[in-house]
């Protein structure tokens, strides 16, 4: 089946998922992002690459950090940015998703940045757009959050250089995490030596092993010898039913403290996609500790989003 993210020349036209993207495209995004990361050294922190282009931020689900970093990335590339508060506008008046998109496309949009609570919504949008308009998935349901996955890869590469000797542990609420899925696909494509997912049976889906990862239900087993520990947020708002006895119990078994972090390698880095629940999945001392790279992740997120938008805008979709 044709990959909807690539045109017939194999170039990236939409970023919908890290799944199915070849290694050279992932590496190319990371290389370009590493170049953009140095923009903060400049007196003028702005490049003309998207001058005259319009980026629509379409957030059908709330987000502050992701929307803001997309907005910063787009404005640093000189694009015009429109933020649409979709939840409070047309959708609530009964307009269908595709009608909303058709109307916005008619307003001469060039890039749609889409977040939606339904898995697959960005794919649906991408399929119904003319070939010169690009879609970047900013998180869809439990499915994918590819720019978060890529910024995690950029962060890991920055601190650890090479994936081929690394053990990466992804800890916590894997079941509800689109970040975990995007990280796993990117890590395996980039040749990471070992990827582990760690959590209680109720929060680690049984099909995970099929993705080529090692499933661990004990935190000690999961992070022992790890180079990178990615903590996931406990997604209370997505929990239904009795998946957990209590967040206190969860912290006792899977919460990362300085003491437990000793199980990982002494130079291991600790990451978290945010927002953090201090004392639920991660202790404050770890968040603020020397091994934490949580704030650098946010900065790398801007560079990755600049790279993705400039790359897709440079490539033309196939005519229908």
């Amino acid at each position, binding site marked *: 089946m044709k990959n909807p993210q690539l045109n017939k020349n194999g170039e990236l036209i939409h970023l919908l998922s890290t799944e199915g993207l*070849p290694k*050279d495209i992932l590496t*190319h995004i990371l290389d*370009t992002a590493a*170049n953009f990361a*140095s923009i903060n050294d*400049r007196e*003028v922190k702005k490049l*003309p690459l998207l001058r005259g282009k319009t980026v629509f931020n379409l957030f059908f689900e709330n987000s502050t950090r992701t929307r803001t970093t997309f907005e910063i990335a787009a404005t640093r590339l000189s694009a015009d940015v429109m933020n649409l508060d979709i939840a409070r506008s047309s959708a609530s008046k009964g307009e269908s998703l595709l009608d909303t998109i058709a109307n916005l496309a008619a307003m001469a949009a060039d890039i749609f940045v889409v977040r939606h609570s339904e898995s697959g919504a960005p794919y649906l949008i991408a399929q119904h757009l003319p070939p010169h308009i690009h879609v970047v998935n900013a998180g869809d349901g439990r499915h994918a959050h590819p720019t978060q996955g890529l910024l995690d890869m950029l962060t890991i590469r920055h601190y650890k250089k090479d994936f081929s000797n690394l053990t990466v542990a992804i800890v916590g609420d894997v079941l509800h995490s689109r970040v975990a899925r995007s990280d796993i696909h990117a890590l395996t494509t980039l040749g990471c030596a070992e990827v582990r997912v760690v959590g209680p049976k109720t929060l680690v889906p049984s099909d995970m092993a099929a993705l080529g990862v090692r499933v661990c239900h004990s935190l000690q087993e999961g992070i022992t010898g790890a180079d990178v520990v990615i903590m996931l947020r406990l997604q209370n708002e997505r929990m239904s039913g009795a998946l957990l006895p209590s967040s206190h119990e969860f912290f006792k078994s899977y919460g990362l403290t300085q003491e437990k972090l000793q199980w990982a390698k002494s130079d291991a880095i600790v990451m978290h996609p945010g927002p953090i629940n201090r004392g639920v999945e991660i202790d404050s001392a770890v968040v603020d500790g020397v091994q934490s790279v949580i704030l650098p992740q946010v900065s790398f997120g801007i560079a990755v989003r600049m790279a993705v938008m400039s790359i897709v805008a440079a490539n033309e979709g196939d005519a229908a």
Partner: protein
Amino acid sequence: MNAEQLYADLRDGLEPWRSSTTQWVGIASGGAWMAERLQQDWGLDKIGVISSSMHRDDYLRRGNKTTKPGASRPESTDLPFDVTGSHIVLLDDVLYTGRTIRAVLNELFDYGRPASVRLAVLVDRGGRELPLQADFAAQKIQMSPSESLRLIRMDDGTFSFETK
């Protein structure tokens, strides 16, 4: 054309430009190699590297080496001095349409406001599409648009030209 001879001519020709306030900046990649050679030959304290890629006018139209997967890692700008107030000499291997120089000047001004900027090249091959000229060219020739000319650096560090 002998690239090593032209480099020696350029080095001798630029001798009068040397001063404690001059900053030497090579345009990636050929000009950056030239700056490295000058650094060795003259014992310069520091040199800069500048990339045109972020300001190229054809970036979105056809991409370039920073947007194509599989290409070598993009060269990035590194200016280890305060650009504002500096007297800068840009170095490039071949001056042709002038579009690279236009992009490089935009890139340079993103870092500050230099006191002056001069351009020195090994070869001025004609064919300008913008009103830009070199202050120093070791050789001026006229080449047809169908020909290509670029500097390459051999394993032993010496220069040579690749023509097609």
